[in-house]
């Protein structure tokens, strides 16, 4: 299932003061991929997500989204290149309705004055920092607001289109009946689905899901597994999932990367990873290995308690 390379991380690392939170991280996501990222708590998984989405700036290595180098770019720019995410602790816009949450993400791809392609091209040529492109963007935005204030027919049509797209995404995620409900009033499982719907609103090519199944019961997790595969096919995405639920990860991911203390300790097909002694030790400790007569691998630091 090999498609176009959408996301690439090459030897990415970040240091906070003296602490190496992530080191030597390699990753490649192609269209149609469904990969997993696992590891004990504090291993650096969410840090990796934050690096990929631009919340942190890597101190080492390079990250490319759809072929473009994005080190140091702001999160919204990286998002516009085609990378979207959900959050480990749900970060919905709580006071906004479900529909509005998705609408914000669906905000015009069309620009009134200068097209997205032209601005992107300028940025690409200037390796990300182009004042001309920023100025064009700013001009686009001011004109856009004028159209909103004047309520021009073109603007009204765009708003209808945005709402239509948002409603469609809600329908795909089974949330159309919650359209006008404030996000904070939704039950937990629906909030998680809303986060995914919102991320999809940005028309991503790669979707990063941070613990999408956290707090769900078995049935919900089963539904989620089906849903994730459906989304990948329906929207032609590449997917990277952080999860603690082993059944889910082993169930849907084609390849898994295992992190521990910021370092990749295993990478590959689910079966191989599951039996890798380093992975077992990271999750269960070396006393488990000894009790089961397995060989203790070369020195790795003791891990924290494995996740539930």
């Amino acid at each position, binding site marked *: 299932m090999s498609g176009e390379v959408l996301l690439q991380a090459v030897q990415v690392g970040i240091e*906070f003061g003296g602490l190496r939170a992530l080191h030597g991280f390699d990753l490649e996501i192609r269209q149609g991929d469904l990969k997993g990222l696992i590891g004990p708590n504090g291993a650096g998984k*969410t840090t990796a997500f*934050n690096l990929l989405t631009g*919340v*942190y700036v890597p101190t080492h290595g390079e990250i490319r989204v759809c072929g473009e180098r994005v080190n140091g770019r702001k999160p919204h720019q990286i998002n516009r290149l085609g990378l979207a995410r959900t*959050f480990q602790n749900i970060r919905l816009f709580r006071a906004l309705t479900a529909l509005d949450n998705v609408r914000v993400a669906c905000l015009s791809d069309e620009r009134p004055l200068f097209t997205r392609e032209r601005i992107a091209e300028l940025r690409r040529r200037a390796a990300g920092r182009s004042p001309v492109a920023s100025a064009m963007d700013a001009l686009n935005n001011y004109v856009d607001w004028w159209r909103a204030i004047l309520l021009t027919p073109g603007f009204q049509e765009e708003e209808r289109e945005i709402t239509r797209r948002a409603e469609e995404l809600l329908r795909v995620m089974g949330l159309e009946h919650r359209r006008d409900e404030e996000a904070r009033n939704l039950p937990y499982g629906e909030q998680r689905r809303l986060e995914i719907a919102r991320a999809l609103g940005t028309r991503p090519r790669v979707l990063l899901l941070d613990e999408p199944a956290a707090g769900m019961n078995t049935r919900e997790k089963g539904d989620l597994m089906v849903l994730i595969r459906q989304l990948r096919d329906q929207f032609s995405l590449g997917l990277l999932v952080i999860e603690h639920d082993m059944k889910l990860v082993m169930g849907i991911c084609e390849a898994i990367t295992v992190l521990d203390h910021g370092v990749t300790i295993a990478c590959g097909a689910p079966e191989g990873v599951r039996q890798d002694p380093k992975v077992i030790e990271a999750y269960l400790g070396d006393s488990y290995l000894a009790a089961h007569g397995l060989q203790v691998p070369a020195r790795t630091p003791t891990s924290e308690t494995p996740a539930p």
Partner: protein
Amino acid sequence: MSDFAQHLINGVAAGTIYALVALGYTMVYGVLKLINFAHGDVMMVGTFLGYAVAQQLGYEHQSSLWGVLLIFLAAMAGCAVLGFVIERFAYRPLRDKPRLTALITAIGISFTLSYGFQLDFGPLPGAAPRAFPEVIAPREWLVVGDRAVVIWNWQVISLGIAIFLMVLLQGLVYRTRFGRAMRAVSFDHRTAALMGIPVDRIIALTFMLGSALAAGAGILYAIKDTAIQPLMGLYVGLKAFVAAVIGGIGNVPGAVVGGLLLGLVEEFVVGYSSSSWRDAVAFGFLIVVLLVRPGGLFGSVAAEKV
């Protein structure tokens, strides 16, 4: 050259007062992550308390050593109580609410105090400025050359008291259990609570300490400037807050450095242009510093956990 030296001395004198008030801001911000807008007005209350005590003591006693001591202690104790009351009834109920809420409350208290004291009835002093009694009879302490540079005795005493208070605070924060508890609370008050630290009490004590310091600074300010009026807290408070931010809010040595720097910059700008620009200097300086170092000189921009 002598002008320069004179400005230097005056700048340091003003700067230490700013530093004292800034310390209170920074300490409270450290434990509560709150900009206590009312801090300057607490200082004002302290000044008026000292004034009242001095009036009671009468002309002879107010300039004796015991009299001056009493004035300081009364003002500082009174403000400690005021600080406790404010924290207990206005800030504590809002501790887990969004910070904007507490900020608005702080502004409210600031206005209540400063404009309340401007009212003309009962014990409230009213808007007219008063002359703070001369508790330290001014005498020239050091004269250089032909009166080219003059250092007054009250400047020296003032500096001495300020330094004494700062050293005391430094010892308190870095060498006592209380200080350690305070620093723990400033990092994470929930974890500190889990470690058995009586967070409420520590915060209350921090507030009282900061308020007492402000009162001390207020008396020193009154000795320097003589005229006191209810709105003085607003401006001195704001400038001291600017000093704390310049040094990096939450950073104790930063507050001192910020205060001294601000005092110096203000004095030099006013000295070499005109005093009508005084109020703009502090904010202009702040904006320049924040543009270059968004966290202040010694502060760090805390990264939010995503």
